[in-house]
């Protein structure tokens, strides 16, 4: 076992790549390809569990580090590592992997081998992006993600798939090239591509602003932040189900992950200058995404715009620059991965049966498909942030963090505006649900719909279970990211406790360790 555990990150990252190569070369038949891909994805998930249970990085440090000289005599390294933030996103990726493959079991009938290989290839690239601690390696993985996604949309997509694929590709490339230039510039300053070397640089303010701009453009397009979001609805609508799930579930988080891992700690001056703008764009995205989602006639587009809204929360949390907001943002990434991933899977289920995604084509589905309606309901509630389900904790922490932010200009106004997104979220989701599931079953074509099959339950129930689990026990994620968040934010030097000196000292010392938890003397309350 030790030859696996000693290089666990390499195994986790490259096992799917190996699988995709084997699919292209050795596996011949379609049904074999499905089983093989599923087995590889499951194996990868099992491997990643090792990380989950073994990670205990003191102070939120990187663990499982692997570093081998790659180019120019060690200036550029093959350097993988995992901290709490990488860990939770990696778990999301490997968890969604098998489910996505299972969801494509029947939906994809053409070029199955290629499809499965693309999915595995994509997974490897995503995992590498989360682990990379060398900027060139990161960039290679980052760009490598584009290729399989481009093909997944372009080959197995819908009517306007070429347009969507090209749009997706060009949007992302435009951002990435600027980031590449910024990376190269920093490489010559730092004399190496290591993230820690970049972090050690002491850059001038002006340089930081430019570099931050280049980085943030790449990440903001990926998230996507308003107004760079228009590739997303097209890509989602045209992509096949599995593509949409991966896109919403993991790919979008690359943007917010990149902000948190690179753009923010590397350029404190840039963050300081751009945080107000980013937080305003995030709030616009929250409201705008929700309002536009409200009027979509197409379910998939509705969910796509809801992603714009939800990711706005994440960006807002990150740029609140409070540990609470940032951790909430990370949590929201997971919650959104689960709930929106599940929503796309659910849309895929009905699309497979009816080959349409127009909301007006449906109505009264709860009669024919009670199981489907129930799972959809739970997912929807998780998405609108009902307490007890995953969405609530993240939103709560983000908004609380933003509310108490000391670096933003009008944190309370921003929070209030962002909180309207919670209301709007309920409106568009419930309205869609009502139009799809309630009322009488009027459309004849829906009369013979089957409820969820065992395979579809197998895809959806794990997601539902984790929606509840994360909602009730968020600690399993928060405990793992807490120290890492502090570590990542350390270069930003944000004051730890706002307003601490606004109040008289005796109030601060009021509580002692053995103070009553629930009982208070009347006298004390009026002290």
């Amino acid at each position, binding site marked *: 076992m030790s030859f696996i555990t000693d290089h666990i990150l390499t195994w986790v990252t490259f096992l799917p790549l190996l699988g995709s190569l084997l699919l292209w070369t050795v596996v011949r038949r379609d049904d074999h390809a499905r089983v093989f891909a599923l087995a590889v994805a499951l194996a990868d998930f099992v491997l990643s569990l090792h990380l989950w249970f073994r990670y205990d990085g003191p102070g939120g440090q990187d663990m499982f580090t692997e570093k081998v000289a790659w180019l120019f005599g060690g200036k550029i390294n093959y350097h993988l590592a995992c901290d709490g933030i990488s860990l939770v996103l990696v778990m999301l990726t490997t968890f969604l992997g098998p489910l996505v493959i299972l969801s494509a079991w029947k939906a994809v009938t053409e070029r199955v081998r290629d499809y499965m290989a693309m999915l595995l290839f994509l997974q490897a690239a995503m995992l590498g992006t989360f682990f990379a601690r060398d900027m060139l390696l990161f960039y290679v993985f980052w760009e490598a993600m584009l290729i399989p996604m481009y093909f997944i949309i372009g080959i197995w997509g819908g009517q306007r798939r070429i347009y969507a694929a090209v*749009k997706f590709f060009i949007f992302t490339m435009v951002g990435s090239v600027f980031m590449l230039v910024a990376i190269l510039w920093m490489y010559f300053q730092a004399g190496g591509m290591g993230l820690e070397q970049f972090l050690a640089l002491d850059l001038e303010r002006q340089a930081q602003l430019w570099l931050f701009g280049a980085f943030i453009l790449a990440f903001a397009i990926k998230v996507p932040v308003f*107004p760079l979001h*228009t590739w997303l609805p097209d890509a989602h609508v045209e992509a096949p189900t599995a593509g949409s799930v991966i896109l919403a579930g993991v790919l979008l988080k690359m943007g917010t992950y990149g902000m948190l891992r690179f753009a923010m700690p590397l350029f404190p001056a840039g963050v300081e200058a751009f945080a107000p703008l980013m937080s305003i764009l995030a709030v616009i995205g929250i409201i*705008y995404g929700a*309002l*536009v989602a*409200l*009027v*979509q006639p197409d379910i998939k587009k509705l969910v796509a715009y809801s992603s714009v809204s939800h990711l706005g929360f994440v960006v807002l949390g990150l740029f609140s620059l409070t540990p*609470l907001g940032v*951790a909430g943002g990370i949590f929201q990434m997971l919650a959104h991965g689960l709930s929106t991933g599940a929503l796309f899977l659910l849309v895929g289920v009905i699309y497979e049966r009816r080959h349409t995604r127009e909301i007006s084509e449906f109505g*009264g589905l*709860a009669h024919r498909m009670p199981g489907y309606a129930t799972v959809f309901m739970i997912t929807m509630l998780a998405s609108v942030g*009902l*307490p*007890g389900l995953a969405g*609530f904790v993240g939103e*709560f*922490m983000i*908004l*609380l963090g933003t*509310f*108490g932010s000391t670096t933003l200009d009008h944190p309370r106004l921003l929070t*209030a505006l962002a*909180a309207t997104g*919670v*209301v709007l979220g*309920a409106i568009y989701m*419930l*309205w869609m649900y*009502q139009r799809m*599931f*309630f*009322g*009488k079953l009027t459309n004849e074509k829906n009369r013979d719909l089957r409820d969820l099959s065992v395979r579809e339950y197998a895809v959806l129930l794990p997601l539902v279970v984790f929606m509840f689990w994360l909602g009730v*026990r968020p*600690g399993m994620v*928060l*405990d793992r990211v*807490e120290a890492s968040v502090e570590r990542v934010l350390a270069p930003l030097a944000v004051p730890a*406790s*706002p*307003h*601490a000196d606004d*109040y008289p000292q005796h*109030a601060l010392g*009021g*509580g002692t*360790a053995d*103070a*009553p*938890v*629930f*009982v*208070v*003397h*009347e006298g*004390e*309350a*009026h002290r």
Partner: protein
Amino acid sequence: METHANETLLRWIVLAPLLGAAVIGLLNRRLPRRVAGLLACATVGLSFALSVVVFLRMLGLDPEHRRLTDILASWVAYGNLRIDIGFAMDQLSAVMALVVTGVGFLIHVYSLGYMAHDDGFRRFFAYLNLFIFSMMTLVLGENLVMLFVGWEGVGLCSYLLISFWFDGEANAVAGKKAFVVNRIGDFGFLLGMFLIGVTLLPHLAPGEGAFSFAVMQHHAPLLAPVATAIGLLLFLGATGKSAQIPLYIWLPDAMAGPTPVSALIHAATMVTAGVYMIARMNFLYVLTPTAMAVVAAVGAATAIFAGTIALAQNDIKKVLAYSTVSQLGYMMLACGVGAFAMGIFHVMTHAFFKALLFLASGSVIHAMSHEQDMRVMGGLRRKLPVTWWTFLVGTLAIAGVFPLAGFFSKDEILWKTWSSGNTVLWVIGFLAAGLTAFYMMRLVSLTFFGTNRASEEVRHHIHESPATMTVPLVILAVLSIVGGWVGIPAFMGGGAHFEHWLEPVFAGGHAAGTHGAAHAVHDTTMEWILAGASVAWGVLGLLLGWIVYTRRLAVAEAGRRFAGGLPYRILENKYYVDEAYDGAFIRPGYRLSRTVLWKGIDAGLIDGLLVNGSALAVAVVASVLRLFQNGMVRFYAWSITVGLTVFVLYLSFSG
């Protein structure tokens, strides 16, 4: 230093119904109907029994120590933010727990009969159990976030149960409306919580949860500077849940749900959550006279506003719904003038008589083959004797006739309003009390007196309901009579036990809040006068309603004509508030989103102009450049030659 007693029974009070909901929900069709129904009743019964046990245990404790906690686990622990999954019971939550589980149990039993023939029988009971779970989380939550969890949970159950018969478009729309309007309130609630959190978090000792009620109370002085903002924000949440102006609009529509749901959720328990929350946060509200004044004013305004609408409704459940809104206004008024105990007292008595009224109206609807329009009812007195008598008791109770439950709570609220010096509010409350009596008697007259105006076929099927439905009615009727006796005020020689029981919870409230009440205690003459006046006023209203709508229907018609049609039509259409909201927010919002944001900004500006525009610019440049790529190899060669020549010449002559 006080100790807090641990009481692990608390968790089972909350979790028992959840287990019931889970079992029924997961097994669904595999569970026989009878078993599902009985299981649901049993879990709520268990909750009630456990509540009684804990309550009795509490009685044995010294009043200052009547607080029991049960912390299950840490929920969110991040930095110095700590939120526990935990429950706590003090005098206030004990009252609420007993009411919720007690009335809840009766309504579960009633539903066995009412829903007996429904296809969604199991689903119904699963939702109902889920509701009790959520409501108990709300009531027993140890901190404000747990309360919020329950708050959202009951909102969800309300949504699910209003749209329970999802066949009907109207039901689904009403359910959605309820959820969304409540969410608007939650917006305020959330911001209120954030303000508390941000204010307290920097000052907490390790292990203190910022949102724990005890911790908030302990640090109340810190909250004082922002108390008004917090109070108003939380009150926005309460206006949503407790159907106050301006967010009351969802409650009348919510009557689309099955009648037991209307009784349990939209009358007895859930809608009082806002009142409970404000009473729970009394230590904060007493710090802010402004917020208190707003609460009182909104409560009084809602009481009279909803009362007038109830005058002109023809749907039996709609009348009761507006009556509920109006009564909730009273409770808010009580909280607003600092009489939190009286607010909770009215929550309790209202739970009894309003649940009774709804269940009895359910019995009427059941008998009338699901007809809800009072204009086709009438003369049901003889055919439905149990329903009639119990309904009458409920009506007298809500009208505040001595010595029924409603009298004590409502009279006390009016008295506290008067004694706190809010004469205007008292007048409004007093007028609304008369309205209440009048429209309730109108309802009774139209339904039970006169001759039946239904079709022959419907009339043929009229029958009294089965025992599962009538027994809860009788029990609730008894409670509606005697329920107020626990709070007979001192001036009548009673012990005011209810107020004393809650005293430790609201101790801060009385000390810092209404000074008037404390001073005026000895002036019993005024209390007697006001009590007499309100009873007389109530009886007058009842008589008037009875006379106008039974004796002289012509008089009623004349009165309607006299009112000139227009005022009546305004009332009948509920002041066109729904239409106004629709015109002011919903339609413009939709149009803005569709035309401006989506088609305009998204498709037009960003995609059309910027994205495809830049693509177009590239295409234009390319279309010029491509002229040179004409496929003529010899042209290329010629170009190369010319270019090379020019280059060489330039090099030769430039140097």
